[in-house]
């Protein structure tokens, strides 16, 4: 479970990615269409030569006509070359599209990752997944496994269900759900005690996992990088 602001940021980010990729594809598609529209017609050279032939009455000798035909032929050959260029340009456009799309996707991913890394560095622990396993009497936070008592599992389950419904429970309500009685009949202090026990067991184990490690038959050690320790 990530915090709601992180989820929102991710949604906005993915929307920006989709919009950016769509814009790139659109721009390059327009470029491709313009490319195909604007290239001269293969017959344009022939038409120009034909016009020349019609407009000049003295262009009638055999040699001159042959020359005109050769001119038209070379023009046609050139327009064939242009057509192959057009294809090459089109292929390059497709490559450019793919590369730009990948670049935008990676850029946004990088920004998102940077932000997340920053948050993780500040927060210390970020819960990405919380799995409650009743039969093993354990809760899995990310990759860490914490053993809990039955009562603590029960409390955590109630809190998790309430969180999924976006509800906030008072101590009396927690006690009410767990004991099965009406919340009005329950004591606020009883719920608070349950929370305290859950915090103690979970907190102890988390500390032992994350900060003060107990190495069997050897002793205790702080589970942090020694470079980050400063004494003032």
């Amino acid at each position, binding site marked *: 479970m990530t915090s709601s602001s992180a989820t929102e940021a991710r949604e906005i980010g993915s929307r920006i990615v989709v919009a950016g990729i769509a814009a790139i594809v659109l721009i390059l598609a327009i470029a491709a269409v313009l490319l195909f529209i604007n290239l001269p017609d293969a017959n344009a050279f*022939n038409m120009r030569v*034909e016009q020349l*032939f*019609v407009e000049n009455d003295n262009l*009638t000798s*055999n040699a001159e*006509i042959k020359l005109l*035909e050769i001119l038209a*032929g070379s023009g046609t050959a050139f327009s064939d070359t242009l057509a192959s260029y057009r294809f090459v340009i089109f292929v390059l456009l497709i490559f450019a599209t793919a590369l730009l799309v990948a670049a935008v996707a990676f850029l946004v991913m990088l920004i998102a990752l940077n932000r997340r890394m920053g948050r993780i560095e500040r927060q210390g622990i970020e819960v990405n997944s919380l799995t409650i396993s009743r039969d093993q009497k354990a809760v899995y936070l990310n990759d860490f496994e914490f053993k809990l008592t039955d009562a603590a599992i029960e409390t955590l389950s109630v809190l998790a269900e309430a969180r999924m419904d976006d509800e906030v429970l008072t101590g009396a309500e927690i006690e009410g759900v767990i004991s099965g009685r009406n919340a009005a009949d329950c004591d606020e202090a009883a719920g608070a005690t349950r929370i305290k026990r859950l915090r103690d067991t979970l907190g102890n184990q988390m500390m032992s996992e994350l900060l003060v490690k107990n190495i069997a038959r050897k002793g205790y050690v702080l589970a942090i990088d020694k470079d980050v320790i400063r004494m003032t």
Partner: protein
Amino acid sequence: MALMLSTTIAQAACYADYKAKQDDPLRLHYGVAELRGDCSVGSAESQLRDRLAGNGWQLLNVLGVFDEAGLEERKESAGDFFLRY
């Protein structure tokens, strides 16, 4: 008198020189053809268009009409297409 002369010319012999083309690949030719009936550019166009289309050519324009006196000077230019169609 002039009218009579022109009719005799028309009856005697009438020729037109024209330009035609073929597409794909572009081929051009200048030719001279004999006309039947009315001796004018208009009738030459209608006659030649049909005659050339039958041989796979498209008429571009008719330059003018003339009688035998004009034949010889155009013979060389027309080449293969001198009185062919």
